[in-house]
């Protein structure tokens, strides 16, 4: 079957070491990078929401905001897919600890913030977005499976889609189970049609995995991927940063997304090729 063609108009990224996609490009080009402020700014959220929002929401809103700003699209026009392997691990830890000691003292706010779709909820409220929104997960495959969901929505309904995949660092004792020791989040604005804002085009094949999907990633990216399931996106993000390449991401245990980046010949003549630095 022919590959699925999807276009990328915006890219967001945040970790303790890199504050946006431009920083990843700089890192991969061998330049020194400055770490961002310790907490994601998440400026898309109004100040009162930002104060109330848990860390998982701040991280998701930060990378979502970056990607949408880069795309130049209105946030309320985007269908959104929020993926996360573990949701808000700090809230899960709080909930389980409180339920074990004083269940009737459980905080109502923390409970409603504990739902897996809290980032989708805060985001659609902050942006006034009435489009479909979803929250998904698939363990270590949360990025690949979320990407497949985002691509299928964009192509089936011919609509632009915001994909966010993020996980905050876990806390003891839960972190011993999740193995998620660093925060990492990324976001893509994906469109079914080529536009003057297209940064790259992806040809995507869904096929059973043959052999290993392990990609040679430069340090420190290898370690980040091990420390956060959402960082399984790094092979694709690295290809996007370089402007060329291919990768295979797991969409399910034995199913892969083979992605070929089509950088050349997709830019319309009137639009000069833009780098992330120019639009960030």
């Amino acid at each position, binding site marked *: 079957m022919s590959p699925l063609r999807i276009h990328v108009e915006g890219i967001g990224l945040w970790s303790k070491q890199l504050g946006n996609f431009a920083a990843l490009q700089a890192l991969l080009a061998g330049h020194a990078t400055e770490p961002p402020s310790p907490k994601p700014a998440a400026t898309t959220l109004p100040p009162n929401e930002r104060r109330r929002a848990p860390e998982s929401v701040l991280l998701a809103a930060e990378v979502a905001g970056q990607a949408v700003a880069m795309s130049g699209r209105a946030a*309320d026009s985007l269908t959104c897919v929020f993926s996360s*392997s*573990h*949701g808000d691990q700090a809230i899960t830890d709080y*909930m*389980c*600890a409180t*339920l*074990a000691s004083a*269940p*009737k003292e*459980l*905080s*109502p706010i923390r*409970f*409603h*913030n*504990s*739902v*897996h*779709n*809290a980032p*989708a*909820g*805060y985001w*659609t*409220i902050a*942006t*006034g*977005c*009435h*489009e*479909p*929104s*979803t*929250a*998904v*997960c*698939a*363990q270590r495959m949360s990025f690949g*499976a*979320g990407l497949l*969901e985002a691509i*299928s*929505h964009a*192509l*089936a*309904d011919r609509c632009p889609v915001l994909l966010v995949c993020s996980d905050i660092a876990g806390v*003891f*004792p*839960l972190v*011993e*189970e*999740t193995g998620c020791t660093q925060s990492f989040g990324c976001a893509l604005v994906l469109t079914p049609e080529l536009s003057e804002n297209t940064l790259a085009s992806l040809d995507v094949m*869904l096929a*059973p995995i043959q052999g290993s999907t392990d990609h040679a990633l430069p340090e420190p990216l290898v370690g980040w991927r091990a420390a956060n399931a959402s960082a399984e996106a790094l092979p694709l993000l690295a290809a996007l940063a370089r402007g060329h390449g291919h990768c295979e991401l797991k969409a*399910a*245990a*034995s*199913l892969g997304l083979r992605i070929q980046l089509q950088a050349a010949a997709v830019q319309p003549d009137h639009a000069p090729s833009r780098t992330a630095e120019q639009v960030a």
Partner: protein
Amino acid sequence: MPDPMTPLAVTAYTATSAIGHGLAAQFDALQAARSGLRPNDFSSAPLDCWIGRVAGVEDAPLPADLSVWECRNNRLAWLGLNQDGFLDRVRAARERYGAHRIALMLGTSTASIGETEAAYRRLDADGGFPDDMRRPAIHAPHSLAAFVTAALELEGPCLTISTACSSSAKVFANAERLIRLGLVDAAVVGGVDTLCDSVLFGFNALELVSPQPCRPFDATRNGISIGEAAGFALLERIDAAPAALRLLGYGEASDAHHMSTPHPDGLGAELALRDTLARAGIDADRVDYINLHGTASQKNDEVEAALVSRAFPARTRGSSTKGFTGHTLGAAGIIEATIALQAIEHGLIPGNLGGATPDSGCGPQFAWTNEQQRVDVALSNSFGFGGNNACLAFARAEFAA
């Protein structure tokens, strides 16, 4: 608005909840207007409320080859999969299409969090999980779908949808997109949620839990009753089963209003409804029955009753069946989809159990007691926290939009 979609065949479906294991038990309870709610005997500390607890989950361990997935939620999933010949239907589809050509899309709000709660109740002296609780695959929101994909030996796209109480309605939309694009030939959809302290004490903290059996759309309603359930459906293209019941349409929309209260004008719910009718290619007056979200919370029922009044003619029938099953949260979408399918199959409009004194906001559409009539088109509403709305439309094979 979207173009009308090509309907899909619902070639198998099944439901297990507090009103019984499998479709026959569910239909029997609906016909007899028999609630499955009982006083709470589940939570780890006392909580004065009623619950929809599935009988026999404790006595149904997983088979030895699946025992690594043991937890209440996966037990309920397995119990559900073993009803109505569902496993055989999936096996036949696997042989016909190939394991990697069948998607698995499952909704859950809390998956196996009950197991994580249990680990926290007996942490080691050093504060860590006890050795027998060191089970990373269980302490994760994907544990349900990971278990079911192993149990069904599927190798296609596998995704957990966790949008609170709309989760297992939205799975139909995920599956339809994958089938429409030719990425798969069939999909197993469904959802499972089990009782756990997180939801019992969580909804209690929000003051949304009733001390009595829930009374959807009743003037004196005072909150929800939480339940647990497992439900599944198999979706294929209609040429595979031309006589089967059909998924006619679906819709999804966001309220953009509040994390835990619905939009006061039901904006997202109405957008999801309009999206559904457009995909189904029908006007509201073609709808015979709506299984309402009807949780028995003050706000949901007020907003949803107003939507029914303004969007549907008097002849359309509507009811909530939460008085039977309780609010099964992430499983509510699929359970109520199966009730909508049974309404078509058996010509039974289930009465709105618990609504003895109807709220004045409810219009003539409400079926307060059981009614027998032919149902060609049935909808099911599912709304979740975060303002996440979904609606499904089903029809009999002979229905022409």
